[in-house]
């Protein structure tokens, strides 16, 4: 069991947090002038914790996640102190080399020439581990599509494949960037609940980017709220709702109260999402 831990408690723990970000600023170079995407952003994901990051679009969520995954090197403002970005106490590059990261983005990024089964196996092969691919496909509910190609699947099913692929090498930290963002409302709600059930069995550390307040409160142990660009983290809320959680939770006063807290935090600067 991983009860919703206070950030301080997670940091004081003997084991280092799954993700620790402090003072992270990032400037994109662009011919039309530099774009400040992050301004000393800070957040932490405790080991075994599900953390949601909410913010309006364009506030730098993807930038933060790609820096954490070691896909983008942070470029601080001139004169800024070097940022802290650590995964289990190590650098993003070391985490990537150790294959600690599982990545799910808004676009599934499947290889269209491979079957579902081969797409998932690819991740295990690249990570140099053996994976029980049929079991993984079973877990995300697409076992019967193992031999299909991505073009034959709906958007929701493609994201299931992407999720199975992200889990194939048993990562220590799942980084999910609006994984349900491109789906229609119905698939989105269904997949959200399945993701919840899936996670409550496994308890892998998760950073989950979303701009849906409901999604954040339903899934997460903790919610970080980011403001308009350049993104800084405005608020941090504990979601002390009991697990396992279900759909019926969203109508409870506690849930609604938390939703409006997040909404208020978002509204504190700029418009809510």
């Amino acid at each position, binding site marked *: 069991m991983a009860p919703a831990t206070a950030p301080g408690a997670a940091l004081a723990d003997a084991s280092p947090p799954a993700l620790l970000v402090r003072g992270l600023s990032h400037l994109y170079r662009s011919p039309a002038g530099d774009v400040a995407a992050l301004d000393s952003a800070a957040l932490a994901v405790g080991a075994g914790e599900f953390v949601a990051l909410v913010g309006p679009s364009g506030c730098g969520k993807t930038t933060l996640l790609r820096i954490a995954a070691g896909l983008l090197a942070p470029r601080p403002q001139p004169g800024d102190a070097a940022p802290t970005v650590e995964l289990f106490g190590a650098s993003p590059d070391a985490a990537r080399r150790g*294959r600690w990261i*599982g990545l799910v983005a808004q*676009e599934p990024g499947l290889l269209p020439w491979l079957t579902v089964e081969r797409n998932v196996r690819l991740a295990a092969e690249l990570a140099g581990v053996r994976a029980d691919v049929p079991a993984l496909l079973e877990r995300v509910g697409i076992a019967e599509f193992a031999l299909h*190609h*991505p*073009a034959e699947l709906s958007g929701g099913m493609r994201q299931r494949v992407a999720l199975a*692929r992200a889990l194939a*090498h048993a990562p220590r930290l799942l*980084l999910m960037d609006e994984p349900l963002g491109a789906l229609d409302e119905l698939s989105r709600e269904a997949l959200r609940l399945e993701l919840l059930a899936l996670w409550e069995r496994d308890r892998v550390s998760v950073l989950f980017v979303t701009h849906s307040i409901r999604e954040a409160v339903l899934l997460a142990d903790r919610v970080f709220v980011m403001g308009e660009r350049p993104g800084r983290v405005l608020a941090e809320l504990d979601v002390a709702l009991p697990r396992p959680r279900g759909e019926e939770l969203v109508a409870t006063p506690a849930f609604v109260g938390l939703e409006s807290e997040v909404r208020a935090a978002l509204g504190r600067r700029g418009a809510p999402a």
Partner: protein
Amino acid sequence: MSGEHRPADPSAARARRLSDAAALVTAAAPPVLALAVLVAVWEAWVRLGQVREYLLPPPSAVGAALVDEPGRYATAAAETAAAAAGGLVLATVAAMLLAVAMAHSRAVERALYPPALLLKLTPIVAVYPLFTIWFGFGLWPKMLVAALITFFPTLVNAVVGLRSVDPAALDLLRSLDASPPQILMRLRLPSALPYLFAALRISVPLALIGAVVAEFLSGDGGMGQLILIANGDLDTATLFAAVVVLVALGVLLTGLLAYSERRVLFWHASTGDM
């Protein structure tokens, strides 16, 4: 329901093949009919004495020329096809190797693009006498002409193709610490295949032209030499027959290409019904 992945019902497969055949007939009927009408009018025109036969032989004479010496046309066509196909393979392999280097390094691209462009702007025909001095006669100089003509379109498309990867897929591979060779083999090369086939659609007719022109210039075998000889004899029926054979060769090579494209790119949107 598409959830089943048992082999499809054979009768359904047969029905689909039949409907494919019906679609093919429907698509092919108008042009075939138009061609038949053209041939008939042409035959009638010449028979009615409107044109001298050595200027414009009737289709029947062209057919007779083909039927008289099928072996001669077959041998010549095979030589030309070998030069064109060999040149294509040579150009494709060379262009892919160079494209991989260029797609991985802007410096290499900047260094090699101008010479590649110069090559494109060189009238290859003008260089051909040099090739015969260097390589003598036979297959090699002809293949080189076909290769040089087709090299540039393949190179340009391959570079674009190798760079046109799905950024989400690239992020995923990099998050798993895939090495550049792994990214090349698993992602970039397959992503470049549609571009490569697009280049080949341009290159196949170009390679044929290159081979025939080289044969013209050297009088060294193939359809080019056959045409050269027939031209000297004012044998217009053979000239027309040679054109027919070359068109057939072009159709055959293009068909082979389209077939392999459908097989290889079954996953790609441009190839239709998958």
